[in-house]
């Protein structure tokens, strides 16, 4: 993905988040709406700070996105897939055998799954960054 496309995708995502936040606030869900807007502001601030640091490195002539970064990202992705499959398999096996039948909101459930996958990826990224 090129830098321009990455930037556009980021700002579209932030706009959608903020827009949904405003929509929720105006439709009687101020807690959720404020959370979304807060999240959008937090992510934007985090990204801007990170971009500033990266620009400083690039101005020095360093390349923060070198081949080692991609190797680490690849290893972290692979580890995330493997552990995700194992954890899900174990969860399904144990849950369907011993667990109670529960009804879930699919959107919430997908949200939890996505969060767990992202957290596992971040964990493995930092792990490989430490050992490599």
């Amino acid at each position, binding site marked *: 993905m090129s830098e321009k496309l990455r930037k556009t995708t980021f700002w579209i995502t932030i706009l959608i988040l903020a827009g949904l936040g405003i929509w929720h606030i105006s439709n009687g869900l101020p807690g959720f709406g404020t959370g979304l807007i807060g999240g959008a502001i937090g992510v934007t601030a985090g990204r801007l700070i990170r971009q500033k640091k990266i620009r400083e490195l690039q101005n020095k002539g360093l*390349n923060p996105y070198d081949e080692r*970064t991609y190797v680490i990202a690849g290893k972290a992705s692979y580890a995330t897939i493997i552990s995700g499959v194992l954890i899900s398999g174990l969860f399904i096996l144990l849950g369907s055998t011993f667990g109670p039948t529960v009804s879930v909101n699919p959107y919430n459930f997908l949200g939890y799954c996505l969060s767990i996958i992202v957290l596992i990826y971040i964990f493995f990224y930092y792990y490989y960054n430490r050992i490599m």
Partner: protein
Amino acid sequence: MENRLKELRDERNMTQEDLAVKAGVSRQTIISLEKGKYNPSIILAYKLARVFQISIEDVFIFEEGEE
């Protein structure tokens, strides 16, 4: 794979950052290479050898059975 990066860098009074800039990588990559934690691609190995103006074999020491 062992390498002589630190030795070559010290001989030329270069800092890790100087080498990183010349090879077009991050300083963290140079640190990992010097510690032997990371094996570079052939392109990076070539770039590093070119910085020191010597051959790849003079920078990286490959021993049988390492792969």
